[in-house]
């Protein structure tokens, strides 16, 4: 089964990091990516550029509408995600807890509908 782990945090949580601290923090994430990869658990993981770089897109009556900014202005921004494979929700929560950001941020864990990786159909809507 696949789970999406969404990392919500604020700049304030890491703004006190020194440059060295920040580099180390980034390396920790990349190490965790490699660790999950080695376990065969990683599907995708990315850091996101800040919310100010986002646009929100809608298609209404054949017209494309584009507005500046993220879909929702939240006090904590979505900063990155991990898409992981796990055999149970408990395992997914463990994998989420292993993300270095979990020490400062909140990680929302969502189960995906995907066809599971051993070929069974995932649960439908």
């Amino acid at each position, binding site marked *: 089964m696949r789970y999406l782990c969404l990392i919500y945090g604020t700049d304030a949580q890491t703004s006190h990091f020194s440059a060295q601290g920040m580099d180390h923090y980034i390396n920790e994430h990349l190490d965790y990516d490699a660790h999950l990869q080695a376990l065969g658990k990683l599907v995708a993981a990315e850091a996101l*550029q800040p919310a100010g770089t986002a646009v929100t*897109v809608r298609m209404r009556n054949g017209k494309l509408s584009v507005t500046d900014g993220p879909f929702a202005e939240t006090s904590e921004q979505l900063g990155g995600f991990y898409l992981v494979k796990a055999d149970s929700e408990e395992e997914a929560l463990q994998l989420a807890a292993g993300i270095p950001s979990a020490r400062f941020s909140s*990680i*929302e864990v969502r*189960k*995906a509908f995907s066809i599971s990786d051993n070929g069974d159909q995932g649960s439908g809507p």
Partner: protein
Amino acid sequence: MKYLCLVHCDEAVLRALPPDERRALNADSMAYDRLLEAAGHFIAAEALTSVSAAKVVQVRQGQRSHVDGPYAEAREQLCGFILVEARDLNAAIQLAGRIPMARYGAIEVRPIEVMEMIENPEGNAA
């Protein structure tokens, strides 16, 4: 360049759709993923189960805890995503606009931050 298309919709609105329309939307959504794949834009995508099953995890002082529910309460929630490769922001906007769910909800397009392993972070100088 990579962009994350975050698909937001009102679950209640989707549940209220006539079954035919709901089926067509699902079929269209999967077909669109395949179209993106054929065109070389597709990296990954998932439809997400209901926010009612979401959990929010934190680790504080080495202790893991979690609460039920989404991170933020809102009428329109994240219901899926597509990670795409596109020439630039405008190309990504075009791809996002044709996501079938864009007609029902809203797609946030966010550029991916490129992260590289930093060799010799400051302070580790020999």
